[in-house]
């Protein structure tokens, strides 16, 4: 039986559909992420699952039981809130014990479980602290422990990492994944940060304008996106419009503004000639290609460089890893000569490109 089964969930605010016909199934022990740009309805969905917001339509089943009309306190879900909202007038231990106290767990058992939960999140011995005295990462852990200690069927996480800096976010992502495995709890993680969602999740659903547009394992969504929106939202793909000029099994040759590109097509029934092609920045190789263009923008990104190349009016994003052998910008600029050895993009320079991989995607909103 699935841990969570949602069918046809809908909610409108003042006549505007915030969430429309959302259906989801989470298997027990799964790390599932719901991602999408801000305002796509993902937090609204989460609040309905938690019971903090009444849906206009649809059903929510937790572990097979219909909980649609139950208030938050009678649901086997717990939530880690955005900005955490720890109780500032309680100690760490009191925060973590709160849910257990409400469900009538006797005090001795409460104390053991709180200690276990704090150990699980690596905060053993922090029980008597004030939440205000903790660092951002530690507060994260308290929020996680406060929810997890109740042993929820589904743990709902509402962008809890949004306020952390990049390094801490990476650390917490690994921690979330470890804690999720150790506690064997089903996680439903909501975020606009596709990077963290992809690195943690077993499966991801992409939301847009109140509905889910695609779902699947992160690798599938990234390498074979079905729609233009998903391709662009997950990892900055460039999407070009074009005409199919030839097909060979699953591969189609597409004439785009930039030139001819071969693209794989999942949806073999898509026989319309006007198509869109998604190209990932890392799927483009510089030099000895059929496409030529001019670098119009270049940016240094640390271990890689990124350039925008204008190919006959179409703008392609190209990434090139910097070799480990110390090709700093200064060295590169004095390097000169052979373009294949020049590790630096120069604005205004003509380059030739080869597209290694491309995917046909549906245009439109779907």
């Amino acid at each position, binding site marked *: 039986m699935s841990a969570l089964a949602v069918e046809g969930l809908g909610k409108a605010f003042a006549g505007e559909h915030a969430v429309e016909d959302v259906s989801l199934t989470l298997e027990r022990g799964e790390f599932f992420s719901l991602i999408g740009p801000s305002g796509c309805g993902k937090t609204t969905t989460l609040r309905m699952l*938690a*019971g*903090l917001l009444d849906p206009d339509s649809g059903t929510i089943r937790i572990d097979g039981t219909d909980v649609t009309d139950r*208030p*938050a*306190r009678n649901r086997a*879900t*717990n*939530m880690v*809130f955005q*900005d955490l*909202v720890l*109780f500032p*007038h309680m100690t760490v231990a009191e925060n973590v014990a*709160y*849910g257990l106290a*409400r*469900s009538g767990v006797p005090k001795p058992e409460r104390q053991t479980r709180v200690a276990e939960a704090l150990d699980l999140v690596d905060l053993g011995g922090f029980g008597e602290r004030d939440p205000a005295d903790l660092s951002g990462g530690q507060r994260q852990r308290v929020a996680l422990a*406060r*929810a997890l200690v*109740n042993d929820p069927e589904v743990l709902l996480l509402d962008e809890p990492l949004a306020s952390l800096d990049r390094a801490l976010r990476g650390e917490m992502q690994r921690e979330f994944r470890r804690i999720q495995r150790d506690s064997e709890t089903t996680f439903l993680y909501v975020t606009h940060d596709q990077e963290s969602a992809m690195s943690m999740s077993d499966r991801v659903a992409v939301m847009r304008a109140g509905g889910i547009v695609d779902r699947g394992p992160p690798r599938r969504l990234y390498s074979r996106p079905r729609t233009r929106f998903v391709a662009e939202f997950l990892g900055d793909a460039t999407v070009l419009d074009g005409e199919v000029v030839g097909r060979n099994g699953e591969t189609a040759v597409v004439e785009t503004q930039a030139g001819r590109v071969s693209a794989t097509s999942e949806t073999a029934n898509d026989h319309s000639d006007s198509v869109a092609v998604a190209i990932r920045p890392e799927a483009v190789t510089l030099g000895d290609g059929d496409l030529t263009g001019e670098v119009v923008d270049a940016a240094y990104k640390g271990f890689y460089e990124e350039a925008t190349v204008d190919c006959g009016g179409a703008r392609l994003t190209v990434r090139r890893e910097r070799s480990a052998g110390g090709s700093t910008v200064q060295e590169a600029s004095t390097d000169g000569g052979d373009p294949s050895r020049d590790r630096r993009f120069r604005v205004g320079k003509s380059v030739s490109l080869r597209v290694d991989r491309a995917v046909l995607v549906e245009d439109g909103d779907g």
Partner: protein
Amino acid sequence: MATAERRLDRLVASGPALLALALGVFPLLVLFVESLGPGLGPANYAEALSPLYRGALTYSIGVGVAVTAVCLLVAYPVTYWLAHRCPARYRLVGLVALTLPLWLNYVVLNYAWVWILARGGVVNAVLVNAGVLGQPLEVLYTEVSMALGFVYIYLPYVVLTMYVSMERLDQRLMAAARDLGATNLRVFVDVILPRTLPGAAAATLIVYARIAGAFATPEILGSPGNVMVARLVVQAVREYIDYGFAAALSFVFLVAVLASLAVGALFPRVRRELRQW
């Protein structure tokens, strides 16, 4: 340079600070010396503590506690609604409507209730004419009318003070408590009450002593038989011209007020909140 600046800072700050101190403490000192009388003895205090006056003292403190409690009971739901449920554009209107009595002379406010509650007043006229009552209610000049007047006059202070606290109350804390299994009552006890206790404490500090020591409202709306401290003080000054006794009675009252506030601060929860100030 730095020390000169600091000296200037001190000079600028010391003037107003001394003035505030003088205005606050100096009259009290004068009053205290007066209370000891020419013989600098405790005679006035002995009299002020006699059973005759003790009754008035405890009654005054009791009225102060009860009316403050009623004001808080009314202000909690009202300010919660205003700060968290009322549509933003009506908020100011609601707040102004609730605090309107602040801007009127409070003797007038008391007399408004005489007019409302009198035998031939608005309430009785309407109720008797509508056939709800056979004969007019005798509410005026009782503790009920006095309490109504008190609440009417002091509620605005409590509402304003509580509103500030209530507005700062984080809604998400309530959602978190509900998510963790709290009923509405638990949300109130565990989140709303502790987060708004500073506001309630501030409101209590503002109105409690003023109610317990009020003169006009008990005189105008209260029963002549129930004597509050202020009447005794006024009597001592006006009728007996005994300033020393009036001063001693005031000091005993001050101590009683402070002692009753200290009792309130004995609650661990109140103490914990107060420590944050």
